[in-house]
């Protein structure tokens, strides 16, 4: 499994400065809550697929991740669809009523999660953890009197680094439990839940212990976030790719804005 690990190849997307990518990710995750038209998501998804193609990160990696999240999305939306009563009823059997409003809501919600997932994965695959945390420091530096910027960047850095580690751990423990004849394809919903608990508990315990060990290790090597503050930050270099990226972002925004207004 390969969740959110830096994928080291050369591509235009890799070359774009981490600051710009991070800013755009933040912007995008805010914007996405204002979009509620299905066809706009189709355009965005198409654009993201185009960017993925440019990044030379195999599609396989993205879909692997969707596969993990999809059951969760389906479960939550599946529950929602039965309980939302607003709108016109389009489907009716026994006591179940499904409305057009519910369908639309759930469709956009699913699109939202999937586009956001794809986009953040794209950023994670194409930006090394170091660059990303540097970017965070850089962007939040003006706020350093109000926010512990270095600590935030450090936490982000560690969190990102440990995603692949934990996903490996999850994989390994899943296998270990399988070899104890724990059947993860069990049809009975109760044993199914119980069986997954047998993986989640060890993973949680491991990650807490990891965090504990890491804190100790950092302390014993005299980590002090305040030391970093004295470091002079490198000036960001704005390369030509960044300029093109900015234009791209701008054009896409204008385009979608007009589409929404005229649609």
């Amino acid at each position, binding site marked *: 499994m390969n969740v959110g690990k830096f994928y080291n190849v050369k591509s235009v997307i890799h070359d774009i400065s981490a600051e710009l990518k991070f800013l755009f990710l933040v912007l995008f995750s805010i914007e996405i809550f204002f979009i509620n038209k299905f066809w706009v998501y189709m355009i965005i998804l198409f654009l993201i697929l185009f960017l993925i193609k440019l990044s030379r990160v195999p599609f396989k990696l993205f879909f692997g991740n969707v596969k993990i999240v999809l059951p969760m999305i389906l479960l939550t939306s599946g529950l929602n669809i039965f309980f939302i009563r607003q709108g016109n009823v389009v489907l009716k059997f026994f006591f179940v009523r499904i409305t057009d409003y519910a369908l639309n809501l759930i469709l956009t919600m699913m699109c939202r999660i999937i586009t956001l997932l794809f986009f953040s994965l794209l950023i994670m695959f194409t930006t090394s953890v170091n660059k990303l945390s540097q970017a965070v420091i850089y962007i939040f530096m003006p706020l350093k009197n109000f926010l512990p910027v270095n600590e935030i960047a450090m936490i982000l850095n560690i969190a990102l680094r440990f995603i692949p580690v934990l996903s490996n751990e999850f994989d390994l*423990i899943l296998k*270990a439990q399988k070899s104890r004849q724990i059947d993860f394809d069990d049809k009975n919903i109760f044993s199914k839940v119980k069986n997954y608990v047998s993986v989640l508990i060890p993973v949680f315990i491991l990650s807490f212990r990891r965090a504990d060990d890491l804190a100790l290790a950092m302390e014993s090597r005299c980590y002090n976030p305040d030391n970093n503050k004295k470091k002079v930050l490198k000036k960001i270099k704005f390369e030509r790719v960044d300029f093109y990226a900015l234009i791209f972002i701008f054009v896409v925004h204008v385009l979608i804005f007009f589409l929404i207004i005229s649609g």
Partner: protein
Amino acid sequence: MIKFEGISYIYNQGLSCEKKALDNINIEIDENKIIGLIGKSGSGKSTFVQLFNKLLKPTSGKIFIDKKKIGLVFQYAENQIFEMTVEEEIGFGIRKYASEKKIKKILEVLDLVGLDKSYLKKNPFELSGGEKRKVATAGILVLEPEILILDEPTVGLDLKSQKEILENIKNLKQKFNMTVIIVSHDMNVISEFCDKVVFLRDGKIIFYGDTYKVFDLNDFDLELPWTKKLAKKLVKKNFFVPENIILFNDLVEYIAKKIREKEN
């Protein structure tokens, strides 16, 4: 039959981080023996053992295994614990058994890994690393596997516990005709307990044969078990010791016999 034909395994196939962990493995493993699996870290040992119970599907090649119950105790098995008592933890694999039969079985394996009855109600999370490992091992043994695979079972255990577990498994093997595969870096463990040895290097099997033979091949650059070291020193001092003697008891017997002969 435990047979591997042209087995290769590639991690992350098709990606830039592709890694060939196993490369054209051909081997038929002897049954009802204790087999040692050795090789440097990264040579593919853990990958190899996961093929036995289909946790990994080979990238190419065929596997013929006519056994159903294959128990694999993972490296760092202490990380797999999830129940609130040792009893439930060990009994999880046989939770469908009637309670009387279950508890009998649990006590049996608890004894095999060298823990006593007082552990039954303990919280496994409060045990030491070595004890957790024992509990996890017991959780596999309780399934009565026909092939038992232990991936680095002795790392982090005190010498006495190491010996105890392995002795018990050896006895168990004799009783139930199990095939046991032990992955280990410890040549003393390998020489004392294994009938045969598989040697992996860079995903290829470069040796499969009797344990004593592997220590006589100089190009393998192995750390020798201390019985073998002693034998070699003795040979240098003109005290002949046959090269197939690697067990501690055999060595003692042989030397004692020789000394007796000289005295007479």
